[in-house]
């Protein structure tokens, strides 16, 4: 590494200039100009460096396409999706496979296509392939390879050697290893990565130059093209993915904050042990445990999607029972609010969307099916099995609605993988997954589980009867045109009798204790629900190259979840009972910077439905949803159709059920949101509504202080501070005059002031956020 850095420092040397001159001659006196200087040092460095680093691969051995040329093309981004690997067409008649996953095809295209016009053995440097790559002949993609660089010369040599694809005796790439694989580094430091490729003959090559580097969190680390990693300020764990010739490896870097962690809150369960161990390791002291009011509000919002009522909040704060937090969690999990809230989350991911009026029955039935199962705490594996292997029609088995929404086999594969396994398989439909081990074979093998889904018309329009169609389960690999048998990801293909519904076998594979994805994906998804960030993030992109920030914790959560019999309420109970969940969101002197180690609670804006219900509760004016009973909460809505009738839901990003990704839900802030809360007719109507909270407070007895207290408990689940109470009382007491300067009737003035106070509370961050 040192040598590499040293070489780099030599860049502007006279030696380099000399090389420039020679190369200039070699290219027929072209004015190579300034760009050449960089090319020269790269070439020189590579030549010298690699020659020394090759251990046994033999520098003089003839080059082959697979081992030597494809990595060059990949490094130069020739085969990226935006360039010559554009799906199906390539670029201007020249097509390469994405990231070189199909070297044989690429070889054919380079060497044979167009009567071999892309390569010229007699004068390799004059090959079109190189002239274009070096932008010597005008190239839409610009200059990808410096003339004379090591890469350039490698290609030249390969052409001059006769353009071998791969000899039988040639060593095959076996693995790629990055060094360091795991390291702890201070913030703002740098680290050069070194990548070694191991071959079947035992040889090892340093491929650091041609490997590709990418950090999974760019706010924590940046990796240069040469593999130099520069760390940012944030403490925690970051992974730099290294990709070389179809294989990947990861360098995990821990960035400690290094602050003293002297006192840790008491651990309640294994979650705390893992979270605190990590915090200790990287030196981030956790915040204090939050107060009761904050806890009650937080857990009510997270479990049941609602604010605690005023009475609940007062009772909780007045309760001296040390077990009261656990008791609240139990009560929330028993409540239908829990089932409603989580059903809304799942219904959107399962595409319960209304396109036509005739979707109504199906959507109500499917949403309710999810909700009722959550209420009864159906084990997660049973629920998924019932969904994926559902048969019948909507009226008797609402789970078949999923097959109405997710009709195409490819969407079934992709949704199942992403939602239930946390794996994104989309890329593998057309080419090998660029960051993963998943190939098209894996993709179609997973799809084969759905190959025997039969459909016939039902008595309900637009609905079908779903059944298992007898036959051998298999799917055609679109690449090879071969039929593949069903197989779980990374599992062996299954022989499934024609009478057996393969979907049941898929469900069996999923719930098997040894399944590496199923439980992990769920616990990670739920972790994110409660902690704002997944242990793997995004929560549905679990892969070796995107490792968890706390792998031990993720493993422990998953194995406990399996042991519990896939008990969803149990998982939530475990999470919410943990001290880690109950930490204050207020940062201490050190952990304000932390964004991934859960040293404090990360506040977040209330989801659209929850916010609407909260506003309805605060203003005392429930939203009236079309065709639903008065009093229906937004968290109970069955589908997306209400986003059109209730502007707030749309403005605050309630999803439409289009995507299997939770990212469809917009949780960022926008100007429209602020304006909606500040001056929409909707909010104004709620504040000033007949028999709304303001009017009721005016008419009710009690002191102004009581009313203010009541409002604070409703909005924030806590009493106002002395200062807040004083300010509010002064505000309510001030006389009002109309536009003509005449005094306003005192009762009316009171009401206006109360509306203002409610309005102000509603717009406070403390209200809009779960904290």
């Amino acid at each position, binding site marked *: 590494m040192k040598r590499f850095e040293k070489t780099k420092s030599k860049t502007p040397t006279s030696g380099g200039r000399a090389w420039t001159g020679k190369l200039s001659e070699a290219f027929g006196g072209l004015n190579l100009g300034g760009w050449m200087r960089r090319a020269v040092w790269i070439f020189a460095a590579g030549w010298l460096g690699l020659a020394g680093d090759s251990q046994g691969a033999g520098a003089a051995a003839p080059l082959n396409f697979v081992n030597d040329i494809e990595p060059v093309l990949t490094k130069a981004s020739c085969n990226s999706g935006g360039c010559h690997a554009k799906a199906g067409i390539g670029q201007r008649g020249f097509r390469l496979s994405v990231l070189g996953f199909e070297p044989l095809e690429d070889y054919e295209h380079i060497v044979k296509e167009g009567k071999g016009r892309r390569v010229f053995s007699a004068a390799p440097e004059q090959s079109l392939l190189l002239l274009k790559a070096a932008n010597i002949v005008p190239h839409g993609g610009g200059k990808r390879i410096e003339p004379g660089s090591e890469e350039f010369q490698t290609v030249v040599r390969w052409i001059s050697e006769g353009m071998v694809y791969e000899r039988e005796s040639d060593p095959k790439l076996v693995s790629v290893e990055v060094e360091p694989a795991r390291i702890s580094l201070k913030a703002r430091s740098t680290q050069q990565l070194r990548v070694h490729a191991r071959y079947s003959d035992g040889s090892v090559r340093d491929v650091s130059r041609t490997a590709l580097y990418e950090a999974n969190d760019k706010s924590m680390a940046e990796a240069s093209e040469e593999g130099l990693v520069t760390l940012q300020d944030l403490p925690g764990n970051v992974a730099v993915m290294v990709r070389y010739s179809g294989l990947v490896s990861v360098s995990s870097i821990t960035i400690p904050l290094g602050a003293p962690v002297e006192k840790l809150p008491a651990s309640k369960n294994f979650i705390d042990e893992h979270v605190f161990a990590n915090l200790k390791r990287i030196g981030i002291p956790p915040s204090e445990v939050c107060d009761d009011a904050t806890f009650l509000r937080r857990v009510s919002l997270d479990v049941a999607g609602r604010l605690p009522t005023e009475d609940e909040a007062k009772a909780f704060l007045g309760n001296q029972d040390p077990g009261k937090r656990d008791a609240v969690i139990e009560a929330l999990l028993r409540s239908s609010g829990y089932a409603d809230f989580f059903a809304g989350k799942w219904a959107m991911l399962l595409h319960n969307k209304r396109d036509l009026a005739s979707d109504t029955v199906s959507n109500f039935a499917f949403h309710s099916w999810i909700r009722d199962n959550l209420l009864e705490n159906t084990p997660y594996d049973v629920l998924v099995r019932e969904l994926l292997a559902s048969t019948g029609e909507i009226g008797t088995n609402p789970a078949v609605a999923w097959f109405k929404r997710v009709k195409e086999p490819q969407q079934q594969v992709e949704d199942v993988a992403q939602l239930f396994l946390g794996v994104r398989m989309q890329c593998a439909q057309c080419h090998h997954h660029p960051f993963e081990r998943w190939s098209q074979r894996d993709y179609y093998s997973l799809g084969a589980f759905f190959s025997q889904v039969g459909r016939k018309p039902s*008595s309900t329009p637009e609905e079908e009867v779903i059944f298992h169609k007898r036959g051998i389960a298999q799917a055609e690999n679109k690449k090879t045109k071969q039929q593949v048998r069903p197989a779980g990801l990374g599992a062996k293909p299954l022989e499934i009798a024609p009478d057996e519904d393969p979907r049941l076998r898929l469900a069996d594979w999923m719930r098997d204790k040894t399944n590496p994805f199923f439980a992990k994906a769920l616990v990670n998804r739920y972790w994110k629900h409660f902690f704002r960030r997944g242990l793997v993030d995004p929560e549905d992109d679990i892969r070796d190259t995107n490792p968890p920030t706390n792998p031990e914790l993720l493993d422990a959560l998953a194995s406990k979840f399996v042991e519990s019999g896939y008990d969803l309420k149990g998982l939530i109970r475990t999470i919410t009972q943990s001290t880690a969940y109950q930490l204050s969101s207020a940062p201490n002197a050190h952990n304000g910077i932390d964004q991934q180690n859960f040293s404090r609670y990360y506040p977040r804006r209330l989801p659209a439905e929850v916010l609407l219900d909260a506003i309805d509760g605060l203003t005392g004016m429930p939203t009236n949803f079309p065709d639903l009973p008065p009093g229906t909460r937004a968290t109970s809505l069955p589908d997306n159709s209400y986003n059109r009738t209730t502007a707030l839901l749309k403005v605050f990003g309630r999803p439409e059920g289009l995507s299997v990704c939770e990212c469809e839900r917009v949780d960022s802030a926008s100007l429209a949101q602020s304006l909606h809360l500040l001056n929409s007719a909707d909010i104004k109507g709620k504040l000033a509504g007949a028999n709304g909270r303001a009017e009721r407070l005016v008419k009710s007895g009690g002191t102004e202080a009581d009313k203010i207290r009541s409002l604070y408990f409703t909005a924030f689940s806590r009493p106002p501070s002395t200062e807040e109470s004083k300010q509010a009382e002064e505000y309510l007491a001030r006389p009002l005059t109309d536009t003509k300067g005449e005094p306003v009737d005192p009762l009316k003035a009171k009401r206006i002031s109360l509306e203002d106070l409610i309005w102000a509370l509603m717009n406070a961050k403390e209200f809009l956020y779960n904290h």
Partner: protein
Amino acid sequence: MSRGTTPFFAVYLTSLCLATPCLAQQVCLPAPRLLTVTPMGGQLGTTVDVTVTHQNGDSIRELLFSTPKISAKPMQSADGKAVPNKFQVIIAPDAPVGVHDARLLTSLGVSAARTFSVGSLPEVTRTKENQSLETAWALHANSICNAATGKRAIDYYSFKGTKGRRVVVDCNAARIDSKLSPVVILADSKGNDLIVNRTSGVLDYTPESDGTYFIKIHDLTFQGGTEHFYRLALREVDGSGPAPRQETTARVSAFSWPPDGLAPVAPVSEVEPNNQPSQAQKITLPCDFAGSFATADDTDIFEFQAAKGEVWWVEVASERLGLNTDPAVLIQRVVKDGEKETLTDVAELDDMAAPMKMGTYQPAASYSGPAYQAGSPDVLGKFEVKEDGLYRLQLRNLTSDTRNRGSAYRLLIRKAQPDFAVVAWAAHQRLRQNDFGTISKPIALRSGTTMAFEVVTVRRDGFDGEINLGMEDLPPGVTAGGLTIPAGKVQGMLFVTAAEGAAPAFSIARIVGRASINGNMVTHPCRLASVLWPVDYAPVELPKSRLVADVPVSVTDFEKAPVSVAADGNAGFQVNAGGTLKIPLRITWRSEFNGTSIKLKPYGSVFGAVKEIDLPIKAATSEVVLDMAALKTPPGDYTLAFSGIAVIKHRPNQNAVKAAEAEQQKAGGEVASLAAEAKGQAEKAAAAPAEGKEEAMKAAKAAADKHKAAEVAMAEVTKRLKTLTDAAATKDVLDFIVSEPIQVSVKAAPAAQTAPAQTPVAPGTAPSGTAASGTAAQPQK
């Protein structure tokens, strides 16, 4: 986001437009329909006060039931007058427990039916609002509550639960004709939901503690109204057996079950485990099994020996028992070589094909076919044994749940027992968009009307012969024709005609199917199916149907058919194959029509190629020409009938107007005479001497009071006359006209003219509807 929004809105707007039916014209002449009966049932041996709602049920005469053990009499007010739409229903102690049909007899005839349940539990009718926890209606254990949900509403009930005491909540709705798709929720004492059922209306729960529990009932999509009624039974149940359910109506598909002579209870039961070939249950053929499907991966496997040349028929009933199942049978031959087994598929048996394709909704069009599912996901088929040996039959439910919510089946494997079952329903003709009102039809005939029925059969075990249909016990003046399902076919037509001069009458008729099977004449009753509700607009509500209890037929002269089309001298016609037959038609017009002519098209496929008749409005005669050479109809007896669409200028309820006018005239007379009487008495009183003054004044007052009462009555009659006159205003009504059936006998051509008649008909291309024998038929004249 906007890309997703635009199409949604486009579709949504389209839906909104479609959701408002543009009914410029009424579709179909008014037919009486009983809409609701509240309460929807009663306990054995009790008298129940019921209220009915109806459509076109003016001048209700009686409330009738499909069992003589239930009777009704109109409720009377204190002054002895009948209270409109209210009846006292008397349920005999020995009335059959179950679901019966109720219907009204009105001036237009018998109405469409509505269920009326009879049970042994005490019943109540909810009488106050119960749409909150606070106003929950208290239920007693082992009782039934009759109620209906409101739109956007949830009904609340409470009951006292006892720890460990199992209760079953059963909300009967859709299977007793209700539009309610019930959601049944059981909640704790604070109203927190505990368990929910949204698919079958039943909850089975054992309380964990003593206390008050709540039941919530609402529609799946929160629809409601009087037609969303339900019967909520709360039972305390011993043991852990299946939850008891209330009785329900039968699906149309159930008409083909059971086969004749089947034992009510199967002699043998399935023995689990039999999921694996190694666990196959050994049986001998023939067999009659009762079993049940469990989870989705449950396969019931049976093993038996069979000999070469045998033919076995396999029938499975499950869906037809009222369950939501889809059985499938696979039979394989098993050849064993030591431990190794070789399996060869012999037969795969799946759904029973529908004799007529069920209609579907098509945008911007009418319902496309019959609203009746006469086929079934059940199994009926055969397998032929090609070789001696061991065979394995596996039975699965293709729509099983992945959790065990077992469903029963009955499996029969038998040697051929050829037989048939038949079901009929009022034929529906596509009129135009939004014509769904046409498909809920009682057999309430206006004199001079012909009504068309489709009759379909499920044939068993290879029976392929002709099925003759008969109608018995028809009211006087009503005849039936077209009574054949031809050999090899599964569909026929039936035409019921009320003669022009038929007097009002009502009877419970019977339709029977008769066929000669292996030399024996076999007779089976033909069931009748009906659509449950008039459907105004199908995208919102699709027609649902069921078997009705019997075949009520009425005839009325309150209104007459707007037009009657019949053969002149309709006693049957005869023609030689290859010849030409001209049939004169006689048309009787009784109403005004829009347009200049009615196009009449022939029914069915035998005469399907007969040229359409363009019948000018008011033409008294017309003619049908049958060119048998062109039609190539083989010899046999056939029925020819026509139908066409017409816009009638309907003047409803004219008789009621006339009656009211007469009543008004009578009342006017009374007022005049009482006025004169009062005037006379007043004058008398004025002139009376002092000693008789008081008495005369009394008499004068009494006369004045009578006069005043008569004037009030007169005002009421006048008001009613106005209402009736308004309602009787002429309306354009789109309806279809059916001709009387015409019997045509096609004879084999005489020997001298054999050439055209002997035009060979290629095998398999014979026109459908061919008569049974295809040889000489009996002459009609």
